[in-house]
């Protein structure tokens, strides 16, 4: 619903903007959820989108598991549990450590560098969240049917990319041209290797 709303908002300035529909499957053709689809414009500076987001901690899990934001987005980490969490990241894109806290920390954390960030909780080893920081406002996350859509892309050339936290190899980017009569449906096939993280008791 929100995505649709964003999509609509993004489309508003460009009447002729296109809507891309992407289908992500695994090697076996099964739909893959939580795959991040984003399009990097090959020319021009992409506009700033919505630059705030929230990753909740509910019942000793990060929600959602996968988040994608544009560079410069400030993310809040509200703690909905009645225990404390200690969120950290050693990822090069953003290293931070939110010491033990309850509720929502006063200041959100700004992710100003593109790249993937793995979030963990120093108290609950099993808690993990994947954050992809991209330099584009056109991104989406596949749903349970493996479907994602990008809307509001101005005509032009783009590199359409896909990312998934469990991917074993990076799927090749697709160079697309957005314009009238441009293809609007794309398919990505991913090789996944689910993490061997073992089982963690909650």
């Amino acid at each position, binding site marked *: 619903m929100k995505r649709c709303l964003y999509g609509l908002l993004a489309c508003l300035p460009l009447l002729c903007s296109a809507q891309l529909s992407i289908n992500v499957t695994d090697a076996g053709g099964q739909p893959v959820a939580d795959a991040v689809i984003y399009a990097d414009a090959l020319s021009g500076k992409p506009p700033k989108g919505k630059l705030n987001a929230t990753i909740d901690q509910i019942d000793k899990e990060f929600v959602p598991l996968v988040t994608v934001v544009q560079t410069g987005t400030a993310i809040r980490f509200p703690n909905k549990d009645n225990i404390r969490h200690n969120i950290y990241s*050693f*990822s090069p894109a953003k*290293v931070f450590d939110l010491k033990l806290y309850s509720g929502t920390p006063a200041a959100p954390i700004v992710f100003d560098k593109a790249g993937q960030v793995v979030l963990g*909780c*120093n108290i609950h*080893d099993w808690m993990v969240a994947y954050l992809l920081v991209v330099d584009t406002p056109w991104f989406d996350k596949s749903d349970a049917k493996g479907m994602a859509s990008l809307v509001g892309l101005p005509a032009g050339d783009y590199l359409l990319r896909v990312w998934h*936290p469990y991917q074993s190899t990076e799927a090749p980017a697709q160079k697309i041209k957005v314009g009238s009569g441009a293809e609007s449906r794309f398919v990505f096939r991913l090789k996944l290797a689910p*993490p*061997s*993280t073992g089982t963690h008791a909650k």
Partner: protein
Amino acid sequence: MRNEFWQRSRQSLTLRIVVFFTALLALVLSAAFALVSAANLRISRDTVAHELDTGEKVFRRLLEQNASKLTQGAGVLASDFGLREAIGTGDTATLLSALRNHGNRIGAQIAMVSGLDNRLLADTLHPDRSGQAYPFAPLLAEAGQRGSASGIEVIDGRLYQILVVPVRAPITLAWITMGFEVDDPTAADLQALAGLQVSFLVQQRPGWQIYASTLGPAQRAALQTQLSALRAAGQLTLAQEVYATRRIQLGHSVKGPVYALLARSLDEAMAPFYALQGTLIILAGFALLVCLLVGIRLARRITGPLRALALVAQRIRAGDYRQDIAIHDGSEIGQLAGSLAHMQQAIAEREAEISKLAFQDSLTGLPNRLRFNQRLDEAILRAEQAQGQLSVLLIDLDRFQQINDTLGHPYGDRVLAEVGRRLAACARAEDTVARLSGDEFALLLPGMSTSAVLQNIGRIKRVFDQRFDLDGRPLDVRASIGVVGYPEHGDNAIELMRCADMAMYRAKRSGSGHALYDTGMRTFREEHLSLLGDLQQAVDNNELILYYQPKVAINGAGGDEAEALVRWIHPRKGFIPPGEFIPFAEQTGYIKELTRWVLARAIKQAGQWLREGRPVKVSVNLSTRDLLDPGLPATVASLIDLANLPPDYLCLEITESGFMDEPAKALDVLHKLRTLGLSLAIDDYGTGYSSLAYIRRLPITELKIDRAFVLELAHSQGDAQIVRSTIELGHRLGLKVVAEGVEDQPVVAVLAEMGCDRIQGYVFGKPMPAEAFDQWRNARLQLQ
């Protein structure tokens, strides 16, 4: 001596019992020992095997636990935020120091971090290796699959247990490898828990290598030389100590396979077994000793009384019947002792009885001949020692046989008892009165000379002067007494008794009542004694010859009847007159053999003459003893039968006195002879006391008038009267009458006139050998 001892010992009951039971126990103990030893050995072996099994399990479990513990420890370390931060964000130097720090926390000697790209990020052992490939790729691959991995590796000549755990932040960011050295202390810890000697080995190039061990230096050196021959399970001898071993592969290092060698010292494991065996041997030895001692004691308890009883029996044999046999227990030995005691008593009583019977005359209660001889021996010994003297009186009742025959034996016995009583009554205390046999008594007078005896002989004779009045039947009993003295007549009992016997016979013959022995009697007797032997030889050597003297019929030519007379031509002494040896043969009893010989010869001769056609009726003299021989009739019957001689041709002559001793017996024999059909003649008729009335009762056919009446027949009117009436009476009794000792023709004429049937004497012919008799007869026949 020694041998004998051993032989005796071997037969001893004690030794047999002890040896038997000890040997039995030894056998049982040996069997038990063998069984227990075999079982123990098996158990010990099993125990060792079991210990190895258990040890192996414990060891493996320990290794796993150790790995698990270390893995957990390493895991915990890998989760440490600071370390993760250092790995996630820090530089190599920081990472190295963090690794060292955290490695030290759990005692790891080695810590490495490798990235997901399998390259070393940091290595505490070799800090310069950052960026190089991770050396234990297989472990990393295993850890990638299973979340963690453990292995054993050789690094820089040391053995390490290696653990690989992930570093998550929160996804796997890197791998931490930690190494814990496996060294002698590690092995010692394992040994303490598993109870086995532990060694860690690697089969590497160029050869096996021992990295850690609990073995001592010597064993370790020995093990090094035997490593190549190691098997999964087996035995090793290390420095004289035997081990049962197990080899377990622990992993595969880059150098080669890694093994653990578990060893159990057999010597150690078997020690309790050998200790038990030693105890058993000591116990067995002790049991044997106890058995031996108890056995000896028990056996002695049994054989001790037996030996005592054996001693008692020996003493009984030696004649000691007054022993106290004091074993009073209910056992068989007690019973045996009781029996022995009864036996001793019985033997003593019986011996007393036997002694009484042996030494006492039951009729008179006086000592018998045996006892008398003993007393005499003792008396002679005493007299010899004391230079003293003694006398012996041999008293024989006269005609006692007649008393027995006429008045019966019971009466005779009473007479003997009375004689004994009277003799005993007149004897001194130191004298011995004995009944030697039948009617023969003896009196031993110690210290008394023969002259003293002769002076007092009246006292003895008065014993018989008094009438015997038994059952109101008065009886006169006379006795003949022979007197001898020591030392003058002999120095021993046998000699003295022999002399006394001779003196007694002299007394009997002379009718004087008593006689003192004199040496003249000795020579006579001794000559006869030597003759006895010669006479026996004479029969065997045909030194005896039969002479025949014709019994000529008054009106006949003669030669149809003859008396056979025995003659002895001694090879040295020449002709021995019958008067010399016939009475002697009668006394010694040899007359029976002599008569048989004569009978056999005479009958054979008569048979021969009969066959030659000139029959001669032969007369043979019988002695008193012959008449008492109940076998004589049968002997004569078989002899005439053998010679095929009709009984008409044999006449047997007997003397009057032949009847006197035992007339009943003699008469019986005579009747039997007469029944055979023989002629029987009374010899020497007229010299005895028998009357014709008595003769009439005898089964005789012939009467021979003694030469004493015939010799003076021609000159003495008295004799002529006797002869004439005898012939007449004989004829009236149906007897044939023969006159013997006729020497001249006038007597022949007188006898012929008196009606005498036959004449025997020198007037017709002397006794002559058979051939001479034949010639004589031929001459007579030619004369006629």
